[in-house]
């Protein structure tokens, strides 16, 4: 049952719609004089569940502030994630109250002064035996204002604001897909919404993610998985170890099928190849031979049309170079699998294997369509996208919302994360775009797919249009690439 609680603020009547209930008992003192934490008995209602969960998660230091909440029942306002919850209490705040007004309030409503603040603020409490203290308090506040002798009076709300921090402000803001400019520049994205008017991806088109494993049981990814293999430990699946969340995040950018966290090509298939593992610290361990075998398996047994590689570093080796060449020349029945590789995050030269010719090497852009640098507007001063020979396109690579491994060992405690970063996140955007192009034109060769993608980018940066060592050919535009492919 929804009720409205009215009060004045700024000479205008305000309304708070309250739904849902929770019961509370005030904190009390034990016989030894020790203050006992307040116990909450919550009665979940569909409208108020998020608030109730939020309340239940509060530390005792916060809960102790609820001593002013009605002892029996009070009302809560339903919230959406990220909103502020206000909880009417059995107190009202009065500004500039004269003694005569306080006397009136005591006589009419039984209000008593419980706290005097600075600058003429007074906190008045509704009697504990009132039928519905928040409503009584709100009515008293309204009438005090209407009498015209106080500067202001309103219910004293408790506010539950989700603490700002990673993952709380933009949990579903997939700016890389559709950037509304908050923050950044509207349209600094890969034009996903427009691309989806053409296709969200053909299930017959498969993208391989070569990484430290993919949680192929993830509810947003599971349905897309067509093949998986572990080239590190020989396990039957490509499940990652421990806190190895990188591959799962990459896969989500390509083909997450969640309603709120969506990949760029949610209709395509996923091939997962585990090629690396954590060294227990901040390092990754690769066996070059196993990685070469994984590349071959992806295009051959996995029948992948696109290979997404969000990894790199160290010197070149011929075994991997040759395997990538085979993917490009023998994959897809000879039309070639598209090889997409991250440029790297050191703000230095593009790292191997991104240096290989005839691959699609991807750098990172931000919400302002800038190349990600240590001084770009996004404020992440600890990394920058690599530059130079080999760089082909830019794609979103800052604060990317995507899938995450389950539990506390992932990037976030939830099954999604709002803060995946780096050319690692830019690369799967380009891989997904290649998959969308192949969804509408499966007859194209891998070279034609790359040509379509680099020739339809949006110009970014301050230089002249065309290739530059800082931003390659420009920022990926999946819609433009698909449209060009159809017209080709």
């Amino acid at each position: 049952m929804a009720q409205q609680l009215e009060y004045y603020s700024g000479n205008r009547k305000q309304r708070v719609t309250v739904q849902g209930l929770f019961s509370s008992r005030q904190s009390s003192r034990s016989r030894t004089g020790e203050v006992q934490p307040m116990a909450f008995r919550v009665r979940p209602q569909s409208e108020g569940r998020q608030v109730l969960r939020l309340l239940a998660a509060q530390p005792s230091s916060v809960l102790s502030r609820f001593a002013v909440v009605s002892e029996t029942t009070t009302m809560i306002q339903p919230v959406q994630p990220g909103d502020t919850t206000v909880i009417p209490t059995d107190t009202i705040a009065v500004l500039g109250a004269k003694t005569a007004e306080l006397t009136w309030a005591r006589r009419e409503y039984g209000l008593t002064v419980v706290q005097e603040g600075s600058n003429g603020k007074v906190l008045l409490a509704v009697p504990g035996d009132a039928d519905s203290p928040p409503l009584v308090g709100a009515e008293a506040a309204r009438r005090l204002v209407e009498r015209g002798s106080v500067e202001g009076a309103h219910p004293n709300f408790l506010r539950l604001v989700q603490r700002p921090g990673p993952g709380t402000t933009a949990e579903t803001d997939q700016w890389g897909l559709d950037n509304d400019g908050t923050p950044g520049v509207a349209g600094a994205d890969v034009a996903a919404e427009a691309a989806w008017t053409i296709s969200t991806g053909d299930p017959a088109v498969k993208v391989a993610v070569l990484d430290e494993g993919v949680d192929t049981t993830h509810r947003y990814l599971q349905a897309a998985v067509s093949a998986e293999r572990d080239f590190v430990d020989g396990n039957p699946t490509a499940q990652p170890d421990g806190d190895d969340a990188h591959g799962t995040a990459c896969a989500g950018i390509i083909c997450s099928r969640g309603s709120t966290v969506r990949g760029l090509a949610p209709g395509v298939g996923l091939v997962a190849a585990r090629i690396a593992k954590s060294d227990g610290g901040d390092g990754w361990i690769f066996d070059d031979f196993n990685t070469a075998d994984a590349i071959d398996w992806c295009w051959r047994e996995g029948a992948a049309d696109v290979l997404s590689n969000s990894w790199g570093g160290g010197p070149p080796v011929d075994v991997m170079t040759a395997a990538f060449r085979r993917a490009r020349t023998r994959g897809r029945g000879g039309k070639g699998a598209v090889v997409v590789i991250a440029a790297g995050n050191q703000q230095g030269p593009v790292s191997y294997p991104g240096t290989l010719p005839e691959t699609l090497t991807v750098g990172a852009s931000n919400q302002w369509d800038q190349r990600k640098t240590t001084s770009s507007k996004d404020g992440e001063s600890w990394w920058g996208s690599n530059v130079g020979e080999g760089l082909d396109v830019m794609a979103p690579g800052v604060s990317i919302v995507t899938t995450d491994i389950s539990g506390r060992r992932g990037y976030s405690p939830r099954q999604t994360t709002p803060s995946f970063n780096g050319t690692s996140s830019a690369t799967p955007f380009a891989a997904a775009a290649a998959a969308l192009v192949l969804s509408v034109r499966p007859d194209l060769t891998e070279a034609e797919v790359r040509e379509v993608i680099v020739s339809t980018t949006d110009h970014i940066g301050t230089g002249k249009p065309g290739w530059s060592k800082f931003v390659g050919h420009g920022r990926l535009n999946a819609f433009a690439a698909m449209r060009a492919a159809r017209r080709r």
Partner: protein
Amino acid sequence: MSPDGAYYWAGGRRIPLEPAGDVVVDLESDAAVKAASTTPSLRAEGKALSTSMVMVSRAAADRALGEAAASAAGVHPVYRAEDGTLIAVLPEVRVEGDARSLEQIRQSLGAAHVTERTDERLVLAPDSGRGEDALALANRIAETGTADVAQARFIRVLARPEP
């Protein structure tokens, strides 16, 4: 040129390898495992590369294994690339090419043997079981120009790409 002259070939270029003097790889072998089993601290303080491999400090390896382990087929060299990547060289060489070339190489192996063969690939192991010898074998094959690829097995330890 690196102090010990180590190098390999990639993309037709000779790439020098700088020894990472502070680490070696303890590959599973009877000698190394036996030595390690008597010094649990070696594995405890090392960095596990797989269930059978631990990367340990040179000092710890010296302490635990001594000269005996160093001369056994259980300790392999580790190099450091320009970008800081560590590269451990294992005693295995992969050779790719056409059947005629592979056969030609097989017939002139010297102190090495074939462990796997397909139409397009030979996998070789130096008889010594040493990583340095695998590197030398791969280089010798690469320098004859008979193979498309001749590469010793590298394990690389990279920084995670997570800014």
